[in-house]
C-alpha cells in the first residue's frame, strides 16, 4: 500500500484557511480579532479613521522584530542579541546623524552594514564554531551593550535630525477612508510581504527544512551553515529597521531596546511557531506581536497598573501554550482510562500467546 502525502491538487484556499483556524498558527488570528473587539469596546475612538493605523504604526517595531526572530526560530536557533542591536543602532543613529539631514542616507547604509556584520558574526559563531546560538547571541549582547553603554556613559545622548525621526513618527495625511497612514505601517507591510515571499522561495523552504531536520538538508546538497547564517543576518537587519523606526518614538537612549528579544520570542511562540524550528507561519508571528500589543493597550484603557503588564503577558504565554497541550493530554488520559477499564473487565490470558504467534 502506498500513501501519497503530497498531491498537486490541494484543497481550495478557503477550506484550508478555515481548517487552519484550529491550529495554533491560525487560532492566533481569532485571538487577535477578539482582543481588538475588546479594545474597541474600551476605546470607541479606535474605529475612527486614522486611529487604527496609528495603533498599527506604533506597534510596528515589535512586529518587525518578531519577523526577524521568526527566521532564526524557524531555523531552530535563538537570537537574544536583537535588543542590544536595537540599542546600539539607535545610539549610532543619534550620534552620527546629528542635525545634518544630508547624513541620513549614509548613516542608514552604515547601520544596515553594522546589522549585517552582527548577523554574520552570530551566524558564523553558531554554525562554524558550533557554539549554541543561545550562548553566541548572549555573548554578542554583552559585547554590544557593553560598548553602547561605554560610549554613551549610560545616559541618553544625541538628538538626530527631525527628518530622520519623521520616518518613525510621520506619515501620509488625508488618505481616503483610512485617514492617516504612518510610514512605519508601510514599512511593516513591505517587510511582511517580502518575508512571506522569501519563505516561499527556495531559501525559505530550505530554512524550514534546516529547522526540522538538518541532516536531510545537508544530504540534499544544501549548506545548512549558510542558510542559518542568513537567518541571523535577516534577524539583525530586522532589528536595525526596527531601531530606525524607534528613534522617532522613543528617542536616543542605550536602554531603548532592552527586553525586545524576549518580547519577539514571546510573539513568535504565541504565533504557533515551534521553538526548535521547522514549524510555523510568518504572518502568525506578526499576529502574535499584535496580540501582545493589543493586550497592553487593553490593560492601559482598563486602568490596570502598568506594573501588572508583564504578569498578564506571562500568564497569556503560559496559557496559550499550556491549554492546547493539556487538551491533547486529556484525550490521551481518556484512552488510558478506557484501556484500563477494558483490561479490568476481561483479564486476557491469551494476550502473550498472540504476541508470540506474530511472524
Amino acid at each position, binding site marked *: 500500500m502506498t500513501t501519497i502525502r503530497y498531491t498537486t491538487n490541494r484543497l481550495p484556499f478557503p477550506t484550508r484557511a478555515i481548517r487552519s483556524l484550529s491550529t495554533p498558527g491560525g487560532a492566533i488570528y481569532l485571538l487577535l480579532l477578539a482582543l481588538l473587539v475588546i479594545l474597541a469596546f474600551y476605546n470607541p475612538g479606535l474605529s475612527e479613521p486614522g486611529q487604527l493605523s496609528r495603533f498599527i504604526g506604533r506597534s510596528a517595531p515589535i512586529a518587525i522584530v518578531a519577523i526577524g526572530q521568526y527566521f532564526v526560530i524557524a531555523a531552530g536557533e535563538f537570537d*537574544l542579541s536583537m535588543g542590544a542591536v536595537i540599542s546600539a543602532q539607535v545610539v549610532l543613529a543619534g550620534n552620527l546623524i546629528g542635525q545634518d539631514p544630508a547624513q541620513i542616507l549614509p548613516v542608514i547604509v552604515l547601520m544596515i552594514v553594522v546589522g549585517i556584520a552582527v548577523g554574520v558574526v552570530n551566524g558564523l*559563531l553558531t554554525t562554524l*564554531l*558550533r*557554539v*549554541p546560538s*543561545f*550562548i*553566541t547571541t*548572549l*555573548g*554578542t*549582547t*554583552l*559585547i554590544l*551593550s*557593553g*560598548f553602547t*553603554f*561605554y560610549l554613551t556613559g*549610560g545616559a541618553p545622548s544625541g538628538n538626530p535630525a527631525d527628518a530622520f525621526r519623521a520616518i518613525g513618527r510621520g506619515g501620509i495625511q488625508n488618505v481616503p477612508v483610512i485617514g492617516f497612514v504612518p510610514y512605519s505601517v508601510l514599512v511593516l507591510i513591505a517587510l511582511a510581504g517580502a518575508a512571506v515571499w522569501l519563505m516561499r522561495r527556495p531559501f525559505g523552504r530550505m530554512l524550514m527544512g534546516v529547522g526540522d531536520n538538518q541532516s536531510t538538508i545537508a544530504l540534499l546538497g544544501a549548506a545548512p551553515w549558510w542558510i542559518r547564517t542568513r537567518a541571523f543576518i535577516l534577524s539583525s537587519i530586522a532589528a536595525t529597521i526596527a531601531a530606525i523606526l524607534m528613534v522617532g518614538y522613543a528617542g536616543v537612549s542605550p536602554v531603548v531596546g532592552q527586553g525586545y528579544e*524576549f518580547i519577539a*520570542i*514571546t510573539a513568535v*511562540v504565541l504565533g504557533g511557531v515551534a*521553538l*526548535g524550528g521547522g514549524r510555523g507561519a510568518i504572518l502568525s508571528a506578526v499576529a502574535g506581536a499584535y496580540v501582545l500589543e493589543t493586550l497592553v493597550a487593553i490593560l492601559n484603557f482598563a486602568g490596570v*497598573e502598568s*506594573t*501588572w*503588564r*508583564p*504578569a*498578564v*503577558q*506571562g*500568564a497569556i*504565554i*503560559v496559557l496559550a*501554550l*499550556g491549554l492546547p*497541550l*493539556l487538551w491533547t*493530554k486529556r484525550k490521551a488520559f481518556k484512552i488510558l482510562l478506557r484501556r484500563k477499564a477494558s483490561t479490568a473487565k476481561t483479564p486476557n490470558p491469551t494476550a502473550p500467546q498472540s504476541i508470540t504467534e506474530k511472524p
Partner: protein
Amino acid sequence: MSTISKDLKNSLLSSTGTVYLVLILVVIAGACITAANGRNFFAPGNISDLLTSTTVLGLVVIGQTLVILLGSLDLSVPFVLSLSSVLSAGVMAGQSTNFAAGIATALLAAAAVGLVNGVLVGLVKINGFIATLGTGLIISGYLFTNYRGTTGKASPELTAIGTATLGVIPVTTIGMAVCLVIVALFLSKTRTGLHLYAVGGDANVATMSGIRSAVPALVAHTISGLLAGVAGLVIVSRLGVGSPEVGTQGGYDLLSIAAVVVGGAILAGGKGSIWGSLGGILIFASIDSVMGIMQVNPYLKEVVRGLIIIVAVAVYARRNQIKIPARFAAIQKAAPTRPTNGATR
C-alpha cells in the same frame, strides 16, 4: 566520601578537566596581571571578595545546572531571587523573633514557584524556556506592583550570618559549598538524579525505558527555585534590606546559564556535571576579580564577559561532538572485532 573523590576523579578525566584547566590558566594569568600592577591576587582580602561574589551566583548556578541537565532552562531565577529577598526582609522587619518565619516564608515561596515551573515543564510539557519566562514575568508583575524600592529589614541573626567568616572564607560560601555537595550526591547517588541525566539525554528513550520523566523535571525545577530563594536570603543578609530589582539587576538568569555552559554542560541536556559548573563560576569570578583590581570600566567588563563566554564555549564545542563515554569504551576494548561505522567506510 570515597564516592565524591571517585566522582571528582572521573570528571577531571572528562570534559570537566578542560574546565579546570581553563580555570588554572585564568588564575595564573590573573595573578600575573595583578602582580604586574603591584597587587597580590592571592591576598586574603581579595580571596574573600572573590568567594563572596561567587556565593550568590553559585547558588543560582547549582540549581540551573540541574535544570539544564534536564534539557530545560530556568529564566525565572532573578525574579524568584527578588521575591525571596522582599518576602524575607518584609516578614523579618528587623526582629529576631521573626528570623525563622522570614526564612521559611521566603523558601516556601521560592520552592512553590519552582514546583509550578516543574509542573509546567514536566507534566504539561511546555518548553522550559517559555514556561519559566512566563512564570518569571508573572512574579515580576507582582513584585513591581507591590514593592517600590527597598523594603523590610533583615533580622540581626541573618545579618550576622552574612558578615561571619571562617578565616578568609565567608560562612555563606561554606553554605553554598554544602549545597553543592548535596546536589552532587543527589545527581550521582539517587535514582532521580540518574533519571535526570536520562531524561535530559533523550526524553523519549527515557520514557520508553520506563522512567517517569515528570519526576526529575519536578525535582530539578523545585531545587532550582529553592536555591534561588536561598540566594535571595544571602543577598538580604548582605544588604540588610529586600529589593524587588536585586535579581534582575544581577542578570542572574543569563549569567547562570552562561556559567553552566562555560562549565562544560550541553544546553540540550543530558551532559554536564555540577563540578564543571563550579569551575564555570570560579572562571567568571576570577576574571571579575582581576578586572575589579585593574579598575576596568564596568561597561567594558560586560564586553570582556561576552568575549569569554563565546571563546570558552567555542573551545568546548569543538570537542563536544559525540564521544564514547569511558564506561562504553571499556566494552569496546573487550570486543574489538565488532564492526563499527568507521570500519565500513
